[in-house]
């Protein structure tokens, strides 16, 4: 019987010809990741495992991005701890300001098609856009994998999501994934691997696919994968730091469920507070007052996101009642945004442009919300208190809705600005 993309990758990493959903397998990992919040705990646990060295320093990546550059003294201590560990172990290390982990790793070619990548960050599933099996875990799992180079997993069932038709103007990966989570719910893909297919997603750039795979966890999924096509190979070419293998689902692969979408009917989306599945077409959220807009994050901090926002914000002003924070996802994205004049356009429009950081997405710093405030954000979660006060609100959207809303001072459709 044929296997899905996810099953084939897992089978190859435990030297099996066939694996089936529900089976427990021990798989080799190609990459192990932790950040400044999860690495300190992982390093402590690593110390208890009883080995001196990580299994392969070139496959262990530590990224200081959540509270980095350090927001306070305890955070500085956590980052110092990971910096010291990375130096002592000669692992890869990216310090504050170099980039957000899930923007950085694919961009640097550290994760490639066919990989099994695990990270102590729930949005590790982002790399599924490259045809890799990537999933988030906790610090203890990561500590043990840093020591052994393998990890136990339950083979997930796969759910196929088919997006037919052509996307409307201003609709991108974020809108598709918010709409999807709205339909299937925040546990609609619990424990499963989501496989994104169809004409509409084949037309997306890798950036749009990273956005979709990134939020698979918001449906409870273990991974979110895309088949490797020419667009993906073009992205990987010149970046890949290792040889890679392209896997694809067999025609007779078995799926737990198949969900079909008419992508041409999907409007830009907004997820209202306080859960990502609370998504509605922007036409139903239009007019909601906002105090802040954030454009960035591991979900939407890539160049294409900034280009989209720039198209709407260049030559216009951020509304006087709104503050807008733009955060390029990596140093490379930042530099390219500078070269293209985007940073100047954002600053001239009245936005604050920050060095790469996760900062405001999880209420860390660089845009924490006060009681009673509402933020429209291109990030991934809108749980109570996510970006600051438990009495604040977060709405999620893609960069086009965010940019239009920043200019109009309320939740707005990009088409309102064009009219």
């Amino acid at each position, binding site marked *: 019987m044929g296997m899905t993309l996810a099953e084939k990758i897992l089978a190859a990493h435990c030297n099996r010809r066939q694996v089936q959903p529900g089976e*427990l397998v021990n798989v080799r990992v190609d990459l192990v990741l932790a950040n400044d*919040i*999860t690495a*300190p*705990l992982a390093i*402590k*646990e690593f110390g*208890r*495992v*009883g*080995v001196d060295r990580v299994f392969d320093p070139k496959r262990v990546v530590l990224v200081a991005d*959540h*509270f980095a550059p350090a*927001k*306070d003294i*305890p*955070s500085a201590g*956590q980052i110092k701890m990971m910096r010291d560990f990375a130096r002592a172990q000669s692992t890869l290390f990216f310090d504050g300001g170099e980039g957000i982990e899930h923007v950085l790793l694919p961009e640097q070619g550290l994760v490639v098609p066919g990989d099994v990548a695990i*990270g*102590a*960050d*729930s949005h*590790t599933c982002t790399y599924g856009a490259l045809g890799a099996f990537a999933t*988030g*875990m*906790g*610090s*203890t*799992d990561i*500590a*043990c994998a840093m*020591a*052994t180079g393998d990890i*136990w997993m*339950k083979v997930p069932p796969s759910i196929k999501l088919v997006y037919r038709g052509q996307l409307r103007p201003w609709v991108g990966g974020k809108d598709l994934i918010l709409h999807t989570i709205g339909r299937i719910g*925040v*546990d609609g893909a*619990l*424990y499963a691997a989501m496989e994104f297919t169809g004409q509409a997603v084949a037309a997306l750039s890798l950036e749009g696919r990273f956005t979709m795979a990134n939020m698979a*966890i918001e449906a*409870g999924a*273990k991974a979110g994968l895309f088949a490797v096509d020419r667009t993906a190979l073009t992205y990987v070419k010149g970046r890949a730091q290792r040889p890679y293998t392209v896997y694809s689902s067999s025609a007779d692969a078995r799926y737990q469920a198949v969900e079909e979408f008419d992508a041409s009917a999907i409007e830009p989306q907004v997820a209202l507070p306080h*859960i990502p599945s609370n998504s509605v077409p922007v036409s139903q959220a239009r007019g909601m007052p906002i105090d802040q807009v954030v454009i960035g994050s591991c979900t939407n901090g890539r160049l294409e996101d900034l280009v989209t926002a720039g198209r709407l914000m260049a030559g216009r002003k951020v509304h006087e009642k709104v503050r807008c924070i733009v955060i390029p996802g990596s140093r490379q994205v930042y530099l390219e945004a500078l070269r293209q004049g985007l940073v100047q356009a954002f600053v001239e429009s009245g936005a604050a442009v920050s060095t790469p950081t996760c900062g405001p997405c*999880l*209420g*860390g710093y660089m845009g924490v919300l006060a009681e009673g405030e509402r933020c429209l954000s291109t990030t991934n*979660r809108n*749980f*109570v*208190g*996510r970006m600051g006060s*438990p009495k604040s609100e977060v709405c999620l959207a893609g960069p086009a809705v965010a940019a239009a809303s920043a200019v109009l001072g309320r939740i707005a459709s990009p088409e309102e600005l064009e009219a």
Partner: protein
Amino acid sequence: MKLKGRVHLYGANVDTDAIIPARYLNTSDPAELAKHCLEDFDPAFVGRVQPGDSIVATSNFGCGSSREHAPVAIKACGVGVVVAGSFARIFYRNAINIGLPILECLPAAQEAQPGDTIEADLASGEITNVTQGRTYHAQPYPEFMLELVRAGGLVEYTRRRLAGQGRR
């Protein structure tokens, strides 16, 4: 091992930001995290919880981030067991790995009332709602998970495994 305590009852999708807000993630000290467990979601919880109490929730408990600080905070509060209809998968792994007992059982979660006394037998998966006089059977742990639990968590399991391979 039997655990007996009062029920703190919650609904669906209790997320990790609710369990431990990110503003406290600049530490990994369990005692410090315990002080802020469920702070924004149920501010009275920390004052109310007694050692051995249970958290009972309907579905998708622990959704959201991979922060192990979430089960660590719950365990450090003295909670003996978390019973839910379903768990978010990263939370599930994290709880097993750090030794916070969790049991999957939807009927027990749906029928429990706040303040009920429940008794959970981790070995058999039997959950007794002492107040209501009802007994339930949780999904049994897969054999491998039992091995992890018996070893005392993933780190100890891995230690032994590596020692067996002569890497130590």
